[in-house]
């Protein structure tokens, strides 16, 4: 692109629309990556906890849930550094804030469960919140695979209200699978 100052009105509009379209494609290119990352980690960790908890009957393996942020955060930072050329958008900021709100709520509920009332954090509540967060993100970024996966996770939580013990891990395992599939479809569509 050169410094051409003799543009017609049509040429100017063409430059604006083509540049904006190219920009949108570049921004949306990695849209599903983070869903795939967190979905895969969630699936693997919940599968490991399920197998260990089910095999030994000891709920102490629940401490392994901390593996999710321990693996996920450095991996997400690594991916974002690889794409450090990508521009920051208002959508990225909004999505970040939505997930931040989910993180804070989940941590507060966990603390309340451990200190005040052990029944505050039930599986349905946290799964619904998780699904709702995915759903909200999908609406913000206008991605139907993400919207669908969010809605499915909310429904999944409701279906598994009668389960307990190690079976709870299965809810998270399926949530992770749904999230991964949603992310993969979103990524394929945007290519």
């Amino acid at each position, binding site marked *: 692109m050169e*410094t051409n*100052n003799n543009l017609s*009105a049509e040429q100017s*509009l063409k*430059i604006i629309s083509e*540049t*904006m379209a190219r*920009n949108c494609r570049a921004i949306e290119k990695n849209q599903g990556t983070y869903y795939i990352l967190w979905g895969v980690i969630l699936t693997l960790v919940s599968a490991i906890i399920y197998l260990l908890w089910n095999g030994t009957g000891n709920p102490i393996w629940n401490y392994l849930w901390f593996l999710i942020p321990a693996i996920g955060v450095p991996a997400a930072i690594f991916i974002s550094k690889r794409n450090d*050329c990508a521009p920051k958008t208002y959508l990225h900021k909004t999505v970040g804030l939505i997930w931040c709100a989910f993180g804070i709520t989940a941590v507060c509920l966990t603390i309340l469960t451990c200190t005040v009332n052990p029944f505050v954090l039930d599986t349905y509540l946290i799964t619904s919140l998780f699904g709702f967060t995915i759903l909200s993100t999908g609406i913000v970024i206008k991605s139907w695979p993400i919207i669908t996966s969010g809605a499915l996770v909310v429904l999944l939580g409701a279906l598994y209200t009668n389960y307990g013990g190690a079976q709870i891990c299965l809810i998270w395992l399926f949530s992770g699978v749904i999230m991964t599939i949603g992310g993969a479809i979103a990524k394929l569509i945007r290519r």
Partner: protein
Amino acid sequence: MFRKLNPLLHSELRLAVMSILIGVEEADFVYIRKQTGATAGNLSVQIDKLSEAGYITVEKGFKGKKPCTTCRATDTGVKAFNEYVDALKDYLSLQDWR
């Protein structure tokens, strides 16, 4: 009566730079260069012109050990861009009418 097209924006590369920055919060110099396909020298000159007019802000810093130039559209820039697009629409509607 037609509004005069803003001469600062009525340039291929500067218009492309503004079109990129209008849709994002901020963008890296390298990203803008890739998106426009311009040479670094030419892009740098055009970015300086937009910056001098107060249409964009340019922040030079580091990302890790790498130098990094970040550009952002200002409110003045957004307003000028919107006026430019409105003026273009006027021109095009007259052409349709003829």
